[in-house]
Structures are given as structure tokens and as C-alpha cells.
């Protein structure tokens, strides 16, 4: 397949665009999907190509319009709904958890609900407590939902297409800090498998597991760990529900050590599930640990927010602790791996 570099938001855009081109029933809906910013570029050109009848701006009525998406899906429409912040979806938990997740089950298979709900999470720029949460474990807990959370442009496109083609309600997480990151993406209409994680790099000493943006940080952490002769195996979860237990178990069985890096809060979070899977399935002593967003609401000021989130250096330091290595001045030495309050030079405030 012919590939070229796209950034994450271009990859999502291309996935949606191709799916809309192939299937007239696919529509896009959400606040601002047709506005000049086009949801961080992810809905670029769609209204121009597919018109007002397939790209819908909406009233600020999140709870109802999640219901509209469910209802439309019962009428042979495939809605892709997007919230610019995961927090807005908290207004819609009844529709997502009580209705969409259970619809197919509660009518015992008569009608399914094929919708994709895109939830944008993460830091942005000084967004503060109500605009920078992650919250993916709230959705991953619910049977009936599938929860997808890619880290690379390739997977963003491939999983977006897979989500649109899926027959179930899909929660699709996008970290704001990924939108401006580049990677190879095939031009074709292709899908990645929902429910399969990916081994980003093989290693022998410890298994590092993450999803979404934190995958970028563990890849950087690996570079740091090289200086200490530690060779981690890196797993990008890609899907949170169903979670790919096999790959995790196999890897930790080999390395004997595990650090699960959580894109959200640790307590009752994604990383808890990972440790439990390992614990239930591997019958030997595994040194394991979690790291994630600090257990507080997330402050706006960068002087505090920078300490809220894990980064390559805090991750590497955590790994080193598991090897009983306690080096000094990690932050000075590896400052180039500490992102500050923007992920890269392409990223500008205020969003």
C-alpha cells in the first residue's frame, strides 16, 4: 500500500472522508463540524464534498443529540458524533450507557446501534479542570460499548474506518496532543482491528503498556532507558474494550516486569485493569506498577499541570526504581524529553 506522512488529524479526516465517499449513510454531527476550525482539522472539506445534508452543526444540546444519533442509527444512518472535549459527553451518559450500550441486548438482537462517538481528551493549553480530563475508564467499564484509543496516524485512520464499519456503538478517543503528530499512513481505505494491541518495539527487561498520547511518552522513555541498558517491550493498547489480554500476558510473561502508563487517573483506571489481567493470568511474581495523571483535578497553570501528567522522564524514573536504580538530575539530563505545556512546535494556544 502506498504510504505518506500525515498528521493524526489529517489521518482521521481521511478515514472519515473515504468512509463517507463509500457509504452515503455515513454522516458527521457535532458542534462546529462545519466551522472554520473543523474540529482541529479533522472534518476539513467534508461539508464541501458531502454537503449540508451529511455534515450537521447542532444546538448546544449534547444529551439530546446523542439520542438523535442513536435514533438516526435505527433509521439506517451511520452517525459519527464528535465532542471537542470529553467533558461535554458527561451530559450524555444516560444516552451512552443506559441506551446505546444496551440497545442491542435489551431488544435481544432486533436492532443494533452503529454509531461512532469521538471524544477529544487531553491537555490543550492551560485548559484547566473541566477541559483536560481523560475519563476513558468510565466508558471502558461498560459492556455493549467498544472503546478505541489510537496513538499513531496510521491507527487513527485504520481504527476510524473500522469504527465506522462496526455495527456497535464505538467510543473513539483522540488526545488533543496527538493531532499535530506525524506518521506514515496508507492512502487506501483500510482497517485496523478493533481489540488488537500493537507491539511497538520488542524488548526483554520490562513491559511498558499505554494507549493514546502516552504511547509517545513511553517510546521516548525507551530512549532514556537505553542509557541504563534497560530494554523495554512497548505495547500500544489501541483498544480499551475489548482489551487485548493475550499480548499483554505474553509480553509480561517474558519480561517479568510491568509498568502500565495511564492516560487518565490511576485509581480505578485503565492501568488497574492491565495489572489485574497480568495478576490473574500469570502465576509467578511480577514486579508491577502504575503511573498516570496525579490523583487531583487538573489545574490550569502550567507550573502545576506539567506535574499532573506522566512524561518520558517520570516514566523512565519509575522504571529505574523497579530496577533499584535511583539516578539524580534526570530532568536536567533529559530535558529534551519533557514536553512542557505544548506537545511540539506546531501546537499553539488557546485550544
Amino acid at each position: 500500500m502506498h504510504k505518506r506522512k500525515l498528521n493524526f488529524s489529517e489521518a482521521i479526516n481521511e478515514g472519515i472522508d473515504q468512509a463517507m465517499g463509500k457509504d452515503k449513510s455515513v454522516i458527521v454531527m457535532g458542534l462546529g463540524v462545519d466551522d472554520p476550525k473543523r474540529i482541529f482539522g479533522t472534518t476539513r472539506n467534508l461539508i464541501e464534498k458531502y454537503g449540508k445534508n451529511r455534515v450537521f452543526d447542532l444546538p448546544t444540546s449534547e444529551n439530546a443529540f446523542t439520542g438523535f444519533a442513536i435514533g438516526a442509527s435505527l433509521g439506517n444512518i451511520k452517525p459519527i458524533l464528535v465532542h471537542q472535549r470529553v467533558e461535554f459527553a458527561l451530559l450524555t451518559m444516560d444516552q451512552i450507557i443506559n441506551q446505546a450500550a444496551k440497545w442491542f441486548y435489551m431488544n435481544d438482537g432486533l436492532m443494533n446501534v452503529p454509531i461512532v462517538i469521538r471524544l477529544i481528551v487531553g491537555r490543550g493549553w492551560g485548559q484547566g479542570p473541566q477541559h483536560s480530563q481523560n475519563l476513558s475508564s468510565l466508558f471502558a467499564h461498560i459492556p455493549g460499548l467498544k472503546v478505541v484509543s489510537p496513538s499513531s496516524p496510521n491507527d487513527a485512520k485504520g481504527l476510524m474506518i473500522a469504527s465506522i464499519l462496526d455495527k456497535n456503538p464505538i467510543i473513539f478517543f483522540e488526545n488533543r496532543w496527538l493531532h499535530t503528530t506525524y506518521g506514515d499512513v496508507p492512502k487506501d481505505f483500510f482497517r485496523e482491528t478493533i481489540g488488537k494491541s500493537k507491539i511497538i518495539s520488542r524488548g526483554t527487561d520490562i513491559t511498558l503498556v499505554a494507549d493514546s498520547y502516552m504511547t509517545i511518552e513511553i517510546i521516548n522513555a525507551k530512549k532514556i532507558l537505553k542509557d541504563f541498558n534497560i530494554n523495554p517491550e512497548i505495547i500500544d493498547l489501541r483498544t480499551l474494550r475489548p482489551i487485548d489480554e493475550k499480548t499483554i500476558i505474553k509480553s509480561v510473561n517474558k519480561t517479568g516486569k510491568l509498568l502500565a502508563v495511564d492516560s487518565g487517573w490511576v485509581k480505578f483506571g485503565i492501568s488497574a485493569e492491565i495489572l489485574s489481567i497480568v495478576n490473574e493470568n500469570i502465576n509467578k511474581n511480577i514486579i508491577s506498577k502504575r503511573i498516570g495523571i496525579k490523583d487531583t483535578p487538573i489545574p490550569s497553570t502550567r507550573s502545576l499541570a506539567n506535574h499532573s501528567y506522566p512524561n518520558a522522564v517520570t516514566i523512565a524514573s519509575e522504571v529505574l526504581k523497579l530496577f533499584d536504580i535511583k539516578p539524580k538530575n534526570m530532568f536536567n539530563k533529559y530535558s529534551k524529553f519533557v514536553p512542557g505545556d505544548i506537545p511540539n512546535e506546531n501546537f499553539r494556544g488557546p485550544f
Partner: protein
Amino acid sequence: MKVKKKILLELYFDMLRMRSVETRIAQEYSKQEMRCPVHLSVGQEAIACGISKNLQKKDKVFSAHRSHYHYLAKGGNLNSMIAELFGKESGCAGGKGGSMHLIDLKAGLFAAVPIVGSTIPIGVGLAWANKINNKKDLVVIYFGEGSTEEGVFYESINFAGIHDLNILFVCENNLYSVYSGLGNRQAKKRNLVSISKSMGISATKLNGNNIETVFIESNKIINNIKTTNKPHLLELSTYRHLEHCGPFNDDKLNYREQKEINYWLKKCPLKNFEKLLLNKKIINDQTINKYIKKIDNELNQAFNKARSDKFPNKNKLFTNVYA
């Protein structure tokens, strides 16, 4: 508009049948074979019967927790409904839903759910899909006046108004939400019809206990929706005779004044219509008895069948989680 005798008889039969179904459920409920909550609609027959008479098979209906009449009047399968209450595999939702999750796709009863207000936007979404797909089918969304206190109701009618969707919103105003009267729930000067109009969608309030009124007026309204492609909200005053949830009369609890109860019992849609038809000699006791027998037979069969049908096998717990 004068309603034909044939139709009058059918409307009467429908109401009698509805009433008999709920009465039978109430009688049988104490045997504890139907082990799920039931919200019976005794007293509210005229609404579902009057409206459904104007609906076509392809029109779609959404309902909430008190859905038996909406289901049956739209042509829902009685056996499947009773079996569902019994929790049997032959139930309309394979036993997984119970009384609060009726469904009959053939009849166009698309969904009923017990979260107050929750089906309203879903019904709107289906009507929206119809518009996108150039389908003219009507969507009817039934809800209690309690639902109109949920924010999602306003969000939903706003959208229906913006996009001119083919929807009949039906508010059955029976004055109560569980044990709560309107006092703690709605300002005295509140007026649903004028709220609706101020949000840009036309609306009407009617006596929901008069089957002729409901039938005739909803006929006009439905025709109007189908020709103008604009939604309409219909508020119908009515009253439930039994307790909110369960098989009994709970008047001894005194949350509703005896005077009020008496007033509404006098306005019983079935009794009054029966009296009217008897007075006008459109029916006689013989016909009524014939009807009763027919309905009883149907019910005996439905209950016997439900009773003898199988429970779903335990593996069914794991089926249809994902499509």
C-alpha cells in the same frame, strides 16, 4: 367530522381490549410469575386507541415505562408481550427487557425504555433519519407530563422545530409522576402548549379521555404533519386508575384527593364511551359480551402460552451483547 359506526365499534373494542389486558395482568400479578415491574395504564385507553387508529403500519412509535397500550394499540403482538412479562424466551425482547422494554418491529413499536424522557431524542433521531432518507413515515413519541420536566424534552422539540421533522409528540398528562402531583413539579402558570409554540412548534391540548375527540383531532393533526412536514405536540389530559407501578389500586395512600379521584372515575374513557354507544344503540349488551368473550379467549391463550413457554437458556445471558 362524523365518525363511522364501524370505526366507533372498533374504537370501543380496542379500548375494551386494552382495559381487559391490564385488568388480567393485575389479577394474575400476585401469583408472582410476572416478576418485573409493571406500569398499568387503566384509565388512559382513549389516547393510544384514538391515535393509533390514524397510524399506518410503517409509522413508528416510541414509548416509555407505561407502554402496554402504545404497544398493543399499534398492533404489537399480545402473546409476545405477556411472555415478556413472564420473562420467557418467546417474549418480544427474549425476556431480557421485561415490561419496561417492549418492542415489536413489525408493528412499528420501535422502543420503550424506563428512563424518563430518554426515548424522546431517540424518536427525534429516527424522524431525522427519515428526513435524510426522504421517507415520509411519521414518528409518534409518547411520554408522560413528568418527561416534560427533563431538559432533554426541550432540547428535542427545539431540534424537531429547526429541522421540520415528521413527529407527533404525545404528552399524556395524568397529573402525577409516581406519587407527586403537579405542585412541586411545575409552576402554576406553566403552559405546555404555549411553551411548545414559543419554541416554534405547533401544539394542541385535548381531553384525553374522550376517544372521539382524540381520534378526530389526532386525525387532522397527523394529516397536517404529513402534508406540512412539521412536528406537532399534543397534550392530553387523563388519569390513571391504578397505582403508579404494580397491580393495585392505591387510593388508600391519600396522595390523590378522593374528590379528584371521583371526578376522574366519572370521566372514565371506556365507561363513558360504552354508555354513549349504548344510548345511541350502536351496541347492545350482547355485542359487549361477545367482545368480552373474544378478548378473554385471546387472553387465556396468551397467558397459558406464556406460562408454558420456556425460560431462556442460561447461555442467552451472553448473546447479543455486540452485533
